[in-house]
């Protein structure tokens, strides 16, 4: 997992599948970024081929926290499979 800060926007690039096994470090990294003041973030999923509900849970938490702080969280690079699951879990 790598992250880059560019013009006040943190770009976070997780790698590999995000499932029940790997969701914990993924969640910890996201909450760490938010706790350190990141309220404008991009999560680039180009290196992720699978995300289970265990991975979507921290995304929901992050989106709520960032939304409450008046920031913005953008997801990009989702390949068709994770995108389908994302749309399935989040109809909004």
């Amino acid at each position, binding site marked *: 997992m790598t992250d880059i800060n560019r013009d006040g926007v943190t770009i976070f690039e997780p790698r590999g599948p995000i*499932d*029940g096994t790997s969701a914990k470090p993924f969640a910890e990294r996201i909450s760490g970024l938010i706790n350190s003041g990141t309220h404008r973030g991009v999560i680039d999923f180009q290196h992720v081929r699978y995300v*289970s*509900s*265990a991975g*979507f*849970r921290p995304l*929901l*938490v992050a*989106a*709520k926290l960032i*939304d*409450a702080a008046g920031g913005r969280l953008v997801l990009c690079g989702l390949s068709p*499979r994770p995108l389908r*699951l994302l749309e*399935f*879990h*989040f*109809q*909004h």
Partner: protein
Amino acid sequence: MGRALWLGWGLPPKLVETLNVVLDEALNNIISYGYREAANDEIVVYLAATPGEIVAEIEDGVPFDPLKVPAPDLDAPLKDRKVGGLGVHCMRSLMDYVSHERVAGRNRLRLTQKIHPADIPMQPSRATHWK
């Protein structure tokens, strides 16, 4: 978990993807909420296929009914969305039938997907299980 086996049975890749997602969600739910390592619990997965349906049965010991987990309100705005319940929503939505019962002191979660006979080339019932 079952990917290689299901592909070996000749199931279409798209169906295998769905079954794999559901099995992943079901097992994660049990491990996250029901399983107790200290109790030396054992999770057993049975997979079976007939020309009409694919069945996955998961057995474990610590009493836990994932179907009692409240369904998430997917229509709620983000700020009101509750965290949790996504895995069960996934199982229920993607499978035709999901049931839970306690049998001989163990949970039995049964996930069933109806399939067209043409989608599974092999004929007699086959089953396998992992512990």
